[in-house]
C-alpha cells in the first residue's frame, strides 16, 4: 500500500461527522460526570465520505471536482492530517503543505514581516529557511511598502496575496489547494497559476479542489469527481469534468428545480459569486421565447454531443403584441463565461418585417466544431437598438465530448499531411484515443 511511487494513497476511507443535537450541543461537565463517560454520545452522524479509495502519483496534478457538500474539503483535510478518518487508511509520502485557507494563521496585531515568519514556521520552514526566501516572498506578494505595517491594516486582497506568497515558497513535496486560486485580482491570479505550473514542472505533487473547471482541464493530469461523498469518476480530467457537467446540466434543465452549480465553498454565502451556468431571463414580454431547444437534424433534443455534429437551435415564439422591429439573437458561451460566437438576424442583414403570430425560428448549424467542454446558449428576441422583449441567458447548456484532448474552443475541420522524410507509425484506432473521423483523415492522408 505504501508503494513509493504514490504520493498519496487512500484505502477505503470513510469519514462521518457527528451531529450534536440541540441539547447536547455543548455537553456539560455534569452530564459527563453523571454518565461517568468522557465520550459524548452523538445523536446522529452524517457520512461526509464513504469508502473513498484512490492514489495520487508522485509529481501528478490531481483535480477534485464536485458540488458543495460532496466532501471535497473534508477529503483535503483528511489528506493533510487536520482530520482523522473514521475508517480506512491514508498514506502520504513527502512533506505536505495545505492551502485550506490563505493566511489562516495571521495575527492581526503584528506586522506582515513577523507574520511571514510565523506562517512559514507553521508550514514547516525553519527561521533560516524563511530568511533566505524572505525577499522572494515579499516580491511575489507585491506589498513591500506595507510589510512593516500590522496585518490588521491590510485589505483582504493584500491579506490573501501575502498568504499565498508564503505558502508557495514553502517548497513542499505535495501541495493541497482548496479553492484559493479564485482569489485576488486578475493579475495576481495569473501569477498564482504560473507559480503552480512552475511547481508542477519541478515535480511537486498537486491536489486541487476547485469549481473553476477550466483549471482542472488545463492544469491537471487526472481528476476525481466526488458526489455525495463517493467517488463518481476518476481519471482523465476532460472526461471527468464533462461527466460532472453533464449531470449538473441535466439537473439545471428541470425547470422547477432551481439547481445552482456551486462556485464557492460552503462557508461563503452563496450570493457572492454569479454562477456562469445559471439561467437568467429578462425583457419587456411583448414577444416571448417560450421554448429554446438544442436538437439534432432529426429534431431530437441534445444535451451531450460529439464535435462536428449537425445542430439546430429552435426558438418557439409566442406573440402577445405584434411587432415590426425585432431581431433574433444567439450567443454561444464557454462554461468559463467567454463568448464563443454571437450573431443576430440584424447583423446578418435580415430585415424584420412583421411578427404577428406564434411561430418557430431555427438556427441551423451543419456542423458545430467545438472542442470538448461545457457550453451554454443565450437566446434573445429584441429590438434593433437592443431593448429586449425576452432575453434568456444560459437557456440551454450542453456538453461537447471528445476523446482527443485538443485545447481551445474551436476545432476547425482539419487533417495532417506530411511530405518528404516524415513518417508516422501505423495508427491503430482501437489503441489510440482518436475519434473515428480523425482516424479516417489520418488513414486518408497516409494513402497519399
Amino acid at each position, binding site marked *: 500500500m505504501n508503494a513509493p511511487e504514490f504520493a498519496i494513497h487512500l484505502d477505503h476511507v470513510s469519514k462521518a*461527522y*457527528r451531529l450534536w443535537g440541540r441539547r447536547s450541543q*455543548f*455537553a*456539560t*461537565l*455534569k452530564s*459527563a460526570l453523571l454518565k461517568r463517560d*468522557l465520550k*459524548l454520545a452523538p445523536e446522529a452522524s452524517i457520512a461526509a465520505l464513504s469508502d473513498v479509495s484512490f492514489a495520487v502519483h508522485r509529481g501528478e496534478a490531481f483535480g477534485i471536482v464536485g458540488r458543495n457538500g460532496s466532501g471535497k474539503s473534508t477529503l483535503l*483535510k483528511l489528506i*493533510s*492530517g*487536520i*482530520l*482523522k478518518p473514521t475508517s480506512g487508511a491514508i498514506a502520504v509520502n513527502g512533506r*505536505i503543505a*495545505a492551502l*485550506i*485557507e490563505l493566511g*489562516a*494563521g495571521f*495575527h492581526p*496585531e*503584528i506586522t506582515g514581516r*513577523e507574520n511571514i*515568519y*510565523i506562517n512559514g*514556521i*507553521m*508550514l514547516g520552514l*525553519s*527561521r533560516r529557511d524563511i530568511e533566505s526566501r524572505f525577499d522572494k516572498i515579499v516580491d511575489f506578494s507585491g506589498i513591500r511598502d506595507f510589510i512593516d505595517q*500590522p496585518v490588521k491594516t491590510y485589505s483582504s486582497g493584500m491579506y490573501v496575496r501575502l498568504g499565498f506568497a508564503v505558502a508557495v515558497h514553502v517548497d513542499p513535496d505535495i501541495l493541497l489547494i482548496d479553492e484559493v486560486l479564485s482569489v485576488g485580482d486578475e493579475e495576481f491570479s495569473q501569477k498564482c497559476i504560473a507559480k503552480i505550473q512552475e511547481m508542477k514542472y519541478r515535480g511537486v505533487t498537486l491536489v486541487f479542489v476547485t469549481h473553476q473547471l477550466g483549471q482542472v482541464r488545463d492544469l491537471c493530469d487526472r481528476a476525481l469527481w466526488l458526489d455525495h461523498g463517493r467517488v463518481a469518476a476518476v481519471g482523465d480530467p476532460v472526461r471527468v469534468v464533462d461527466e460532472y457537467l453533464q449531470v449538473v446540466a441535466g439537473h439545471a434543465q428541470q425547470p422547477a428545480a432551481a439547481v445552482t452549480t456551486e462556485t464557492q465553498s460552503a462557508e461563503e454565502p452563496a450570493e457572492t459569486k454569479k454562477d456562469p451556468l445559471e439561467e437568467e431571463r429578462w425583457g419587456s414580454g411583448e414577444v416571448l421565447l417560450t421554448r429554446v431547444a438544442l436538437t439534432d437534424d432529426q429534431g431530437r433534443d441534445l444535451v451531450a454531443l460529439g464535435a462536428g455534429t449537425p445542430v439546430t437551435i429552435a426558438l418557439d415564439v409566442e406573440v402577445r403584441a405584434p411587432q415590426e422591429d425585432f431581431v433574433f439573437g444567439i450567443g454561444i458561451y464557454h462554461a468559463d463565461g467567454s463568448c464563443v460566437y454571437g450573431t443576430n438576424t440584424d447583423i446578418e442583414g435580415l430585415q424584420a418585417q412583421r411578427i404577428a403570430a406564434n411561430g418557430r425560428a431555427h438556427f441551423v448549424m451543419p456542423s458545430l466544431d467545438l472542442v470538448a467542454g461545457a457550453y451554454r446558449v443565450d437566446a434573445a428576441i429584441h429590438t434593433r437598438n437592443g431593448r429586449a422583449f425576452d432575453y434568456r441567458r444560459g437557456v440551454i447548456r450542453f456538453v461537447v465530448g471528445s476523446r482527443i484532448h485538443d485545447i481551445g474552443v474551436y476545432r476547425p475541420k482539419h487533417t495532417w499531411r506530411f511530405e518528404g522524410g516524415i513518417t508516422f507509425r501505423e495508427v491503430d484506432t482501437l489503441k489510440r484515443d482518436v475519434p473515428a473521423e480523425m482516424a479516417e483523415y489520418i488513414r486518408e492522408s497516409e494513402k497519399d
Partner: protein
Amino acid sequence: MNQLATLYRSRQLIAALTARDLKARYRGSVLGFFWSLANPLLLLAVYTLVFTKFFPQQVVTPYPLFLFAGILPWTFFSAATLESTNAITSNAGLIKKVMFPAEALPLVVVLSHLVHFALAIPVLLGAIVIFVILGQTVLSPIILLVPVLMLVQTIFVAGVALTVSSASVLFRDLRDLVTNLMQLGFFVTPIIYLIDRIDSRLLRALLRVNPMTSFVIAYQDVLFFGRFPSVSDTFLMLAYAFASIVVGFTVFDRLRDTLAEAI
C-alpha cells in the same frame, strides 16, 4: 515520548508563537513591555494597602515581601490556567485550517505567562534589596533556587493547561468553573497568611491537598525566609508536576482527534 518528539520538532513554532503573543499583547500600548513590570508592582501595592491598612494582619515582617513571594507564582498559575481554557477555541482557524500541533497552543500560553513571571523577578529582587537596606531582611544565596522552582512549577502548570485547554473545547462549562475555582484557590493557598497560624489540623491537611500550597510555601521559603523548602514540599511538588504532565498529555491525546471537529 512521541509527544515530546513532536514538541521538540515544533520548538521553533512554539517560540515564534510565544514571541507573537507577547508582541501582540503590548502592541499599541504606550508603556509596552513595562506593563510586565508595572503589573506586579501595582498588584503588590493594592494587596499591601489592603492587608496593612484595611485589615492589618502583620503575620510576618516585611509583609509586602511575603505577599510578593506568594502572589507571583500564584498569578503565573492562575493566569495561565484561565487563559488556556480559551487557548484552543480562540485559535479555531489554526486547528481547522492548518496542519498544526494543537498542544503548542496551551504551551504557548504557559510560556508567555512564564515570561511575565520572569520579568517580575527583577522587580522582586529590587524589593528584596530595598528591605535589606532597611535592615528588615537578609539576602541569602538560597534565592538561586528560584529558577529550579520555576522549572518544576512550569511543568505542573503545563500539565494543567493541556488538560484544561482540550477539555474546555468539549465542556464549555469548564471556563466558568475554572474562573470560580481560581477565586477560591487564592484563599485556600497560603498567600496572604501563614499555614502554621491555622489552628485546625484538619484544615491544614485540607490546604495541603491543594497542589499550589506546596509551590507557594516553597517560594516563600526560598525568597522570604531564605531557607530550603522542606523535604515533604519538595517531594509533593515533584509528584504534582509529574502527575500533572502525564494527565495533561493523556487527556490531550485522547481528545486531540475530536478537536478540529468539536470547535
